[in-house]
């Protein structure tokens, strides 16, 4: 199961990179591809039971932009183990966000966010429709930018018994674009939090993400 997913993400990255770079440089189309690794920390609380898992997930992300529109794709998988005696879980996560940039520093996004938590007792699938706002600012030098993205879950499909309350998240960090080269790197912190059953259950995932990649075109 895990190997199959890794192959699909690799195929996506390779196919994006195979597009002719020269043509992209002169066009309004931009492509960004990166490989990422994240230290993940999952906190689940059901009643008085608290489960904390930590581990490493890895994956890739890409962005296809055309004028003011963009499509962000993200895929991660990995595993997190309990620091105590609890069992570990495999984590598979993906999202596809369609974005629109009304201002040079602001992007509005909408799209699905899927997460699967696989353990020995079964698989929990979380499906969210999220709306996001992302802002960017240049931090003194043109190659260094800060970004902040916040989102809210507007729809969901969960295979858990508790009724849904709300879900929100935030991500921010620094993005360094190499001057004169298509390489870039990013260091960010990401947190999403779901609340179910009037607070009887909460699911929180934190990620400390490091990404390197290259960009073509805009």
């Amino acid at each position, binding site marked *: 199961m895990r190997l199959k997913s890794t192959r699909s993400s690799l195929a996506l990255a390779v196919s994006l990179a195979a597009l002719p770079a020269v043509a992209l440089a002169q066009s309004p189309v931009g492509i960004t591809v990166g490989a990422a690794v994240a230290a993940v920390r999952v906190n689940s609380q059901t009643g008085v039971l608290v489960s904390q898992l930590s581990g490493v997930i890895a994956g890739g992300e890409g962005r296809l932009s055309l004028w003011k529109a963009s499509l962000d794709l993200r895929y991660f998988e990995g595993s997190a183990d309990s620091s105590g005696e609890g069992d570990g879980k495999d984590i598979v996560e993906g999202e596809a966000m369609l974005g629109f940039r009304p201002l040079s520093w602001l992007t509005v996004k909408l799209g699905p966010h899927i997460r699967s938590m696989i353990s020995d007792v079964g698989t929990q699938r979380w499906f969210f429709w999220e709306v996001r706002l992302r802002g960017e*600012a*240049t*931090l*003194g030098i043109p190659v260094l930018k800060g970004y902040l993205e*916040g989102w809210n879950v507007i729809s969901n499909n969960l295979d858990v018994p508790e009724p849904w309350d709300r879900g929100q998240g935030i991500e921010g*960090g620094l993005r360094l674009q190499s001057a004169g080269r298509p390489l870039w790197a990013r260091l960010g*912190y990401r*947190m999403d*939090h779901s609340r179910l059953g009037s607070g009887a259950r909460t699911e929180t995932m934190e990620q400390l993400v490091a990404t390197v990649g290259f960009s073509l075109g805009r």
Partner: protein
Amino acid sequence: MIRYRTPLLAVAVAACTVAPALRAQTSTQLLQDGIRAYGDLEFEAAAGFLRQSLETGEPGLNNSDPTVRRVRLVARATALQYLAATEIFLGHPDSAQATFRQLVLLDVRYQPDRLVFPPEVTNVYDAVRAETKSVTVRAPDRSEFRVGEQQYELQLFASTFHRAEINIETRGGTELRRLYRGPIADSVMVQWDGLDANGRPPLRGTYQLVVTSLETDGTSVRSVRVPLEVDVDVRDTLPHPEPPADSLFLPERTAPGPAYEALAGGLLMGGMLLIMPGALASDTDLGGGRYLIGGAVSLAGITGFLTRRPGREIAANVAANAALRRGWQDRMELVVRENETRLADVQLTVSAGAPTLVEQAER
């Protein structure tokens, strides 16, 4: 009555058109008659012919054609010589001296031929010439020369040793350039380089060469005025290069926008990263990753503000702007030098007119 109008008109028109030619012919004939009568020792008749010749030949001296002017000058000088000699033999020494004085003033280079006229005539001429201070100017009818490199040459002949002053003046009498002030014994060559007293070429126009004969005490006796028509040919100068447009200059100091964007953006985003996760998941024990990244973003914003603080000099842009200005100044200097060369390369064409004699009392 009407019948006579047409013939009368024809006679009048003919008289107007042929009158100058007839007058010249009559003057020449009268001169020949006078010389013949002088040779026949008929002095009364010779005096009559010669006086009439001088009266009728007067207009030709101001003719615009230099050749006609010279011919009339020679004829008049000849008539004056024979008339003066005739007056001597008629026993009119005063009239003879007055006539010789006219001859000296007409052109000091003309003098009685000592093979034709006896010493009693030439002695009177010599005495008159010695006491009459006058200068004859020989100027080229037309001369082209390059200012500063070539010269406009004038030759002056003096009747007797005296001091003279030679100036080029405007038509209004303002001195343009003094060419000479000093003694003239026999003749002197004067040159004009085409520049005024300030070292600049004159403007196109009419000027006059004024040669003033002076008494020993410096007072003016008389002056010869030669009109000079000056045409100035100057090469066109190059236009000065336009200074670089403002849009080409880069900002030499940092603008406040990027610095404040870095500070506000860094602090806002860093602060949000520090605060918001705890606010959203208040019931969860979060890790310390948000502090690491939030702090890094805030620090990057502050650092960005400090490195791009408003008003800081941008050395690379200052150097680029200086190079832009220097390039324009170099081009300007080249044009200025080229224009100086072109302005110095002036050609003058000077056309001399008929000289006129002005006695001091007439000035």
